């Protein structure tokens, strides 16, 4: 075993809608891998919104989406994204 830090690889990612965020920080506080942080920018309402500060730590568990009271963020595993996209296209054919 070498002493080098193991290379972490992201297993998922988050999707953020900055304009509906109210900056409550639930997602940042309760992220199990602590990979989210506040943005430096403001949204139109003047709140800092979450951004994926350490994307390599994200497992796509989706807990941020379960906590978000404003439906502004959700996480997903990479392997689920394509299926979700297909389902989403099927449910909104005009998109």
């Amino acid at each position: 075993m070498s002493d080098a830090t193991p290379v972490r690889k992201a297993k998922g990612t988050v999707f953020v809608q900055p304009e509906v965020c109210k900056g409550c920080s639930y997602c940042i506080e309760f992220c199990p891998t602590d990979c989210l942080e506040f943005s430096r920018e403001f949204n139109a309402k003047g709140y800092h919104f979450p951004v994926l500060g350490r994307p390599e730590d994200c497992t796509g568990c989706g807990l941020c989406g379960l906590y978000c009271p404003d439906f502004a963020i959700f996480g997903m595993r990479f392997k689920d994204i394509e299926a979700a996209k297909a389902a989403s296209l099927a449910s909104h054919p005009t998109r």
Partner: protein
Amino acid sequence: MSETTLNDDQDLSGLPLVDNPVMPYLRQERIPHIWCPGCGIGTTVNCFTRALEEAALDLDKVAIVSGIGCTGRVAGYLNLDSFHTTHGRAIPFATGLKLANPDLNVVVYSGDGDLFAIGGNHFMHAARRNMDLLVVCVNNFTYGMTGGQVAPTTPIGATQTTMPFGNFENPASLPFLADAAGATFVARWTVFHVRQLTRCFKEALGKKGFRFIEIMAPCPTLFLRRNRLGDGVDMVRQYKERSVLRNGADTKEVAVGMEGDIVVGTFVDRERPTWLEAMNSHFSSVLGDRYRTYGG
């Protein structure tokens, strides 16, 4: 507001745009909602929609009824058959809805002031009759929408607009009340316990009889600010530290104060004939062949 819906093609992380799993269950034209930053009601809605998805219910057979108040807005945001009733009368309306359409799965989603102060009598009688309803009470310990007056759940010592020197009234312990009135399923979770709450919703949606779930949620604008308890996230962190899981706990011992443990879990899970079942079996035995059974 077009920029607020997920259907706009703002590709935010360089990945194909996918829908938030909660979006199909929301009336998207009404989002963003009016709840304050740090309010926990949105989190409970997330859990509820996730449970609806997992329970794979026919959404045309689910109806949601709310009263007045901050939590009363839930019915307006959920894309189900929903009704926003007069203050405190969510349970009577839901009772009528259930009895006229016995195959509906009726959910009452309201706040502590609406369900226990203004509508306290209705709660008691629906539980006594074992009306087939799922009653979800988001308890924020205050009247949020009207400016932070003392509610029946406000703990002793809490400062509110109508109790500037601290509350001295004994608060109601909602699980104890529901248990004593005869509810068949009584549970309590906080906004911190999102996974457990989702599972609890799913379990309760699959049961029959009067089911009651209390969810503790922070009210950052009124309850927390007046009591200098910090922001919504500080209170949720407190829930994390103070909560103790005790399934099957005696509901006499689950009262909540300003400090001390918050007992969470499923306290009561029992079987009793629902009102319709009791009516059918009673009239069948009294009237015999002259009676035709109604509904479930």
